């Protein structure tokens, strides 16, 4: 029995798979790869898979995290190849590491994002909104020529959806289609570098 932490990216249309559907999707990928996932105990046993904090659909994930409990372990680089061979387009596993100890969501304390409005003139509005919406939870923000990068603490409490909803409410955006979003990394906040260090 091995608990594996996996880093994965959700690019292209795979980013529209809902967060709640990911455990089932990962379970199927593992089964297709001919590997065995441990089942949970209890009333309705299902594959033992834990996800990191939720990401709304339509937001790219460059390096998100999940944990899968495997019945048997294969060499990690082989494992990644096997999983990627059976994954839908856009979804790709980037790294794997055997872990133990605290649960995934206890170890994650921050996440970094990129947002860019489709109308570039709205960049300043978006910057202001990022500061207003997240307040003290905003660890860092930088406005670049191609978008705004920002880091938030406590990702399970502070999601990107909050920001878009606020901008829609202020009528800066008509809907989600008015901006493009990606989650850059999930992990631990590094105070010295002012960056989110990916857990994996």
């Amino acid at each position, binding site marked *: 029995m091995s608990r594996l932490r996996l880093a994965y990216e959700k690019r*292209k*249309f795979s980013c*529209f798979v809902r967060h709640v559907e990911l455990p089932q999707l990962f379970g199927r990928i593992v089964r*297709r790869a001919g590997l065995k996932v441990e089942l949970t105990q209890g009333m309705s046993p299902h594959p033992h898979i834990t996800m990191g904090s939720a990401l709304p659909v339509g937001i*790219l994930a460059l390096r998100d995290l999940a944990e899968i409990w495997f019945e048997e372990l294969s060499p990690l680089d082989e494992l990644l190849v096997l999983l990627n061979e059976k994954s839908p387009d856009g*979804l790709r596993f980037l790294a794997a590491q055997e872990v133990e100890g605290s649960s995934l969501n206890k170890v994650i304390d921050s996440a970094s994002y990129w947002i860019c409005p489709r109308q570039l003139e709205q960049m300043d509005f978006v910057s202001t909104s990022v500061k207003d919406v997240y307040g003290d939870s905003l660890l860092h923000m930088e406005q670049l020529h*191609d978008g705004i990068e920002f880091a938030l603490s406590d990702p399970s409490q502070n999601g990107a959806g909050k920001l878009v909803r606020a901008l829609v409410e202020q009528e800066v955006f008509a809907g989600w*289609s008015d901006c493009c979003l990606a989650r850059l990394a999930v992990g631990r906040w590094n105070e010295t570098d002012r960056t989110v260090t990916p857990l994996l």
Partner: protein
Amino acid sequence: MRFQEFDDPRWPLIADAKFPARYAVSEWGAITPPEKANLRVCLCFPDVYEVGMSYIGYQLLYPFINELDGISAERAYCPWIDMEAAMRRANRPLGSVESDRPLKDFDVLGFTLQHEMSFTNILTMLNLGSVPLKSSQRGDNDPVVIAGGPGSMTPEPVADFIDIFSLGDGESQLPQLLKLLADTVHLSRAERLEAAAELPGCYVPSLVDCYYDDEGVHFSSRKSLPCRRVISSDMDDIAPQSMIVPASGIVHDRVVVELFRGCSRGCRFCQAGMTYRPIRERSIEEVKATVRRLVDSTGWEECSLISLASCDYPGIDALLAQLAGYTTEKNVKISLPSLRVDAFSVDLAQGLELMKKSGLTLAPEAGTQRMRDVINKGVTEDDLFRAVEAAFERGWQKIKFYFMMGLPTETDEDLDGILRLSEQAAEIGRRYSRRAAVNVSVAGFVPKGHTPFQWEAQTTREELSRRGLYLKRNLRHRAVNLKYHESTQSFIEGVLARGDRRVGAAVLRAWELEARFDSWSETFSLDRWLEAFRDVGVDPHWYADRERLPHEGLPWDHIDCGVTREFLWRERLRAIDERITVDCRGGTCHACGWQKRGCEWSGGAS
């Protein structure tokens, strides 16, 4: 944009959609279209993605057609109303899932006629795909529009919009047709349709005229009529090699394996049971091999063994026992789509973990033995209560009953029967558990073509409402929960089910008036359809409410599904006499028409 995907012009439309996963399709097992193909086919399902992906027909035909030499198949689904509006605003054509190739750039579009309420969605897809709606408006550069599926047995209401109807099993009917179309790309449309009309199982409406008089509708053509349905005889030969697994939740999210096609029970209301004859079984060995093959390659956790009556499959219990080792090892759950109404089936279901979790569903269909005999649903009260007893005894808490109302010769006594059976079942349940419940679902009966009831007048909306309220008002038992279906959709369904070519004008007009997704109650509007009928001068009541004359020319006489009109008439007379016709698999052939064409259960009867 920093990330390329945001430059995809579809992205903003998808981001705003109510259910983006319908359009931002993420799947395992789709086939990348080749750079070059002699013929590009698009399988078009006239409903949203999650409904279309639950249809086994396209899961079977998609890899099958892609295996044909030089022929490539892709898929398209109907955009929901929010996406349709967004696409029109953005001037984006409807394209395929695999390559977003606009429908107009395919050589062939293949639609499936699953039910009458999907007809307007066909028009949406054609229109968004920049394909002229009417067959008569299409030119040499427009795709050839084919339609198959159960609705092709009563094709006239959409005859204006379809170039060629493919009658019967796609695995056997399509290869010849597609090869012909591939070989004739350089010919004119008229020449190609002429050639197609010569092939078995092809009905080309533009080459068949109809005229109407006091004796009904009559068909005439230079081509030979009737057009005959083609069947696949060898179920082992056509066993599927793969399935597509959507990443996003769909309605039927599992491996599906057919046990057999056809049905021998002879229920008189059932169009599928009549038009899918004769029975063709898949061997146990092939069923097992297919289950393994599909579960291994898809990773699905559940597998459903389907047919029109899975509990009738010879050796179904042996099959389940033989699968047990594999399914335990792989942790995959087997399920059956429906249960026969008897204790045997309940025993079977008990062994299937999945089926224990959900409620148990039984379909007695009618409340009195008399009424069940009329519809030839071979279920006795004894069978029913033994099944119910078995179910509650083995731990089920909830049982669901399906009934119909508005059946031919029905009286309030039969409605009382529905209540009595349900309440008695609840009483049995209460002996085992305080929480036992019986949920009853009652649907309005719609007479269908190619059945013994094709001559019947459909019960009117007003009368169906009255019967529904009667049931509600006379229900006494607290443990019985009864729902009946809103009858406005049934009325339109009834018109389209037995409509002739003149009804097509109303389908088009309804679509122009924004009729969409008519099977969905949130988008269906009876008033819109009534306005459409008024606008084109067609009386819907003449089609739904009217009893047909015995010798009336019916709008599907030119389509031969294999079961003869004489047989259907005999069955209608037996229905009126309340006489049952036993399952012909048991050894008594009733000469439905297939005995002349090699049905293996006919025992030489003619």
